[in-house]
């Protein structure tokens, strides 16, 4: 069961898969633009006028995000600068030892939902110290590649429409992050030993 899972999962790292995915990514936007503009033109949409009409909202959306993003990034920036992360790592590391997660990679998991550049910095440092093909390097890379910066996404997406009361949004996002970390440790243990 575990072996067959490993085989299935491994095929995704095949160079052919990568090449195919990359070409799809490169062609997706030109294709999308072609389809949208052509279809609009055929349906007699005044493409230029409608484009301008839609685009003028861009400025307002960007401006609306500012207070939300300032609030989130300031709190996270202060937290990072205070050195509190080291305390948090010391507090949680006994639990992560139990599931076979190296203590060095814990800061990546904790930082990932808070700051994209912050967690990338930690990953880069870990890869530099332990080597990209070490277990720590591979797990750190997987952790970074497997989720988004939850709080940033929350600030931008809810900020753009002026939502302040987020209800269970943060909890849902953090549960996703937590499961992502567990899954990353599990699959890296199987594939990279």
């Amino acid at each position, binding site marked *: 069961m575990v072996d067959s899972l490993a085989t299935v*999962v*491994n*095929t*995704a*790292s095949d*160079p052919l898969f990568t090449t195919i*995915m*990359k070409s799809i*990514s490169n062609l*997706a936007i030109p294709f999308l633009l072609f389809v*949208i503009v052509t*279809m*609009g033109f*055929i*349906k007699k*949409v005044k493409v230029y006028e*409608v484009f301008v009409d*839609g*685009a003028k*909202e*861009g*400025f307002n*959306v*960007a*401006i609306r995000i500012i207070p939300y993003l300032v609030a989130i990034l300031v*709190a*996270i*920036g*202060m*937290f990072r*600068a*205070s*050195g509190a992360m080291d*305390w948090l790592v010391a507090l949680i590391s006994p639990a992560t030892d139990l599931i076979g997660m190296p203590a060095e990679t814990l800061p990546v998991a904790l930082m990932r939902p808070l700051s994209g550049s912050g967690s*990338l910095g930690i990953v*880069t440092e870990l890869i*530099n110290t332990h080597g*990209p093909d070490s277990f720590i390097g*591979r797990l750190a*890379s*997987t952790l970074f*590649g*497997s989720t*988004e910066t939850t709080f940033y996404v929350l600030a*931008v*997406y*809810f900020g753009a429409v*002026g*939502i302040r009361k*987020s*209800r*269970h949004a*943060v909890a*849902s*996002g953090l*549960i*996703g992050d937590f*499961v*992502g970390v567990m899954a990353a440790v599990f699959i890296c243990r199987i*594939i990279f030993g």
Partner: protein
Amino acid sequence: MLNYIWFGLMIIALVVGAINGQLTEVTNAAVKSAAVAVEISLGLIGIMAMWLGIMKIAEEGGLIKILARAIRPVARFLFPEIPDGHPAIGAMMMNITANWLGLGNAATPLGLKAMDQLQSLNLSKDTASNSQITFLAINTASITFIPMTVIAVRAELGSMNPFEIISTSIFASTCACIAAITASRILSKLPAMQASNPMLQTNMEKEVTNG
């Protein structure tokens, strides 16, 4: 919850910063982060304008409706509040596809457009609806097929196979995404979340009498 987290981050930063003798750094970080936040937001203007323009054409040309109809069964399950074939579903589908392909530049504007359309269905303008939360969950734990940034770092630092983490990332991000969506659906059933649901008639009435 965000109130507690925000308060917690700030108080921990100030107290731990004082104990560690890092208060100057903490203050500097606050000032710098505020500036970065504005930079990021302003940097979105151009790309936002472009995609909002294109999306408007896609809407009027009927493409969004076609996409919305194509994924109706999935949409009905994940977003029961949204009427069948609503343009919000088409916009969400484009955002999710852009995320899968790792097109971050396009994914955000498309996602914000979708969020805006969900907001037009929302009966309260400052409280997130269940659909908006599920959609946010999909984005905070989005599935990535090629995590380009970290692959680039690995290649630069001399990995024998920088791509080998693609499979493990796909697996972990799929688990994370399923968990986040499931959590958003289950948590919405909690009594406290039912009480704050902006789409329930009784809550609307409460708001009217209070206001």
